[in-house]
């Protein structure tokens, strides 16, 4: 329906070209479908999947830096992968990244649960609308600005040290903890929203039934709410986990000299110009995320995205 073009009216008694084209298309639904699909599929399959394939192939090439000029060696080899798997520094960076991803996920869950519960089950409908808007608004604020905001918060003469100073405390300074805090802050709305949606789907009558049968608030939460909510929490964790694995910018802003796995990828493109090694490194987060998705698939979390 988008392929017919209007033209001038035809001769009297004869349908115009536009009408003929439109009725021709009407009689051939397959042709319409093909027309509709051609452009998006060309883009997504040929351009995007094609690019992923090129990246995958590139990962098996090698940049030979032995001579005066770096030479791209196109014979397939596993050397990039062996280097990534065997060298100690990469293993440490990978473990640190997984640790930060896990910490961010746990902290975001602990912060999101009471907030989402209050929004969905305690607040009045009007307050709920306001709270949802308040949680959503920072999603629109720029990623860089939010990371930068934590740089000003955690700086040596920043707000955190100023607030903790009178009680003799100090902020964590720039480093791993600051990175985890900043990433947790950045991805928090991605955890609150699925948990809130999951809580809204749990009927109040279930909670009341549990209370009528003598369940305390704590027990009802543990045995009724949490099991029903689990897929939503997992759905949120997909975001917190996958976004953390791919991040190399926040850590540059608040991490001091800390390196995350994505920095390995980025630094090999930027300074070293070693695209094959970067491509090989990029395969790891993809595999980690696909494994995670396969692991959580049975919880039904993917329907909660």
């Amino acid at each position, binding site marked *: *329906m988008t392929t017919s073009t209007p033209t001038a009216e035809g001769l009297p008694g004869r349908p115009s070209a536009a009408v003929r084209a439109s009725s021709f298309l009407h009689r051939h639904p397959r042709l319409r479908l093909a027309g509709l699909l051609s452009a998006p599929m060309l883009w997504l399959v040929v351009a995007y999947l094609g*690019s992923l394939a090129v990246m995958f192939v590139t990962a098996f090439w090698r940049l030979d830096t032995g001579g005066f000029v770096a030479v791209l060696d196109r014979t397939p080899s596993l050397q990039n992968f062996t280097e990534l798997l065997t060298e100690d520094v990469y293993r440490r960076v990978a473990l640190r990244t997984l640790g930060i991803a896990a910490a961010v996920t746990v902290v975001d869950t602990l912060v999101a649960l009471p907030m989402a519960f209050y929004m969905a089950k305690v607040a009045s409908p009007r307050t709920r609308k306001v709270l949802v808007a308040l949680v959503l608004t920072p999603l*629109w604020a720029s990623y860089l600005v939010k990371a930068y905001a934590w740089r000003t918060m955690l700086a040596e003469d920043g707000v955190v040290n100023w607030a903790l100073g009178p009680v003799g405390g100090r902020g964590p300074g720039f480093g791993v903890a600051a990175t985890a805090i900043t990433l947790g802050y950045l991805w928090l709305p991605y955890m609150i929203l699925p948990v809130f949606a999951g809580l809204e789907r749990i009927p109040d009558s279930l909670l009341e039934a549990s209370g009528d049968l003598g369940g305390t608030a704590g027990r009802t939460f543990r045995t*009724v709410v949490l099991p029903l909510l689990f897929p939503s929490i997992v759905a949120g964790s997909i975001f917190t986990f996958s976004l953390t694995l791919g991040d190399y910018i926040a850590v540059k802003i608040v991490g001091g000299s800390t390196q995350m796995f*994505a920095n390995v990828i980025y630094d090999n493109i930027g300074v070293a110009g070693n695209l094959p090694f970067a491509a090989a490194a990029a395969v790891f987060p993809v595999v980690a995320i696909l494994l995670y998705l396969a692991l959580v698939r049975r919880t039904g979390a993917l329907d909660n995205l």
Partner: protein
Amino acid sequence: MTLSARARLLLRLATFGGLAVIYVPLLVVLVNSFNPSKTFGWPPSGFTTQWWSRAASNPGAREALLTSVEIALAATALALVLGSMAAFAVARYRWFGRETVSFLVVLPIALPGIVTGIALNSAFSAGGVALGFLTVVVGHATFCIVVVYNNVLARLRRTGTTLEEASADLGASTLQTFLHVTFPQLRGALLAGGLLAFALSFDEIVVTQFTISAGLQTLPIWIFANLFRPNQAPVVNVVAAALVVASVIPVYLANRLSEGNGGGRL
């Protein structure tokens, strides 16, 4: 479940504590943009608007802003066309690959930006394509398709085909039906999807870094490049504060769009 007064109070405290954590850093950026001290020690040592006027006349920031808007507009336009076409194909036709389309469309945003970035970068370099304005647009459009697709698909599923059939029965051509029946029904979804796509593109830095040429700067690239330069700190701070204020605009627009027509979705 009946909550004790104490539990309610604790939940309320946790919620407002959480909101405070969300908003305090953003407020600090705003307040700091009026801080006369160049190092932004806290608390501010006074009040000045000189950084704002200095930022407004900063040629690098202005040029980067313009580039960002141009790229976001181009990427949004592409995403609107491609996302709507894919949504029509999935919503209006039965065929073997329908499930796959949803997966394919969401993939560029489900994978970390750095993977999409590297993949496009490898493909451009393998194909001998020089990086520049257009390569950034291609990169951004790729992950913006999904938000348009989701919005248009949800709308098409809700509206059904009865009005279009009525239009055809009354003698309208396919094109007339599209222009006078289908398109007006979709307008809200296209606006919501377009708004999201624009915001995503405007804020993107990772995919941009891998697809942009050295001489070109979008606003996020400009901020990141100047973030660690002490003498640029006041201007960076003002740009950050301005972006915090500007982020209210899409929230307001999305709210207006969602009133009465079911709203957009990410």
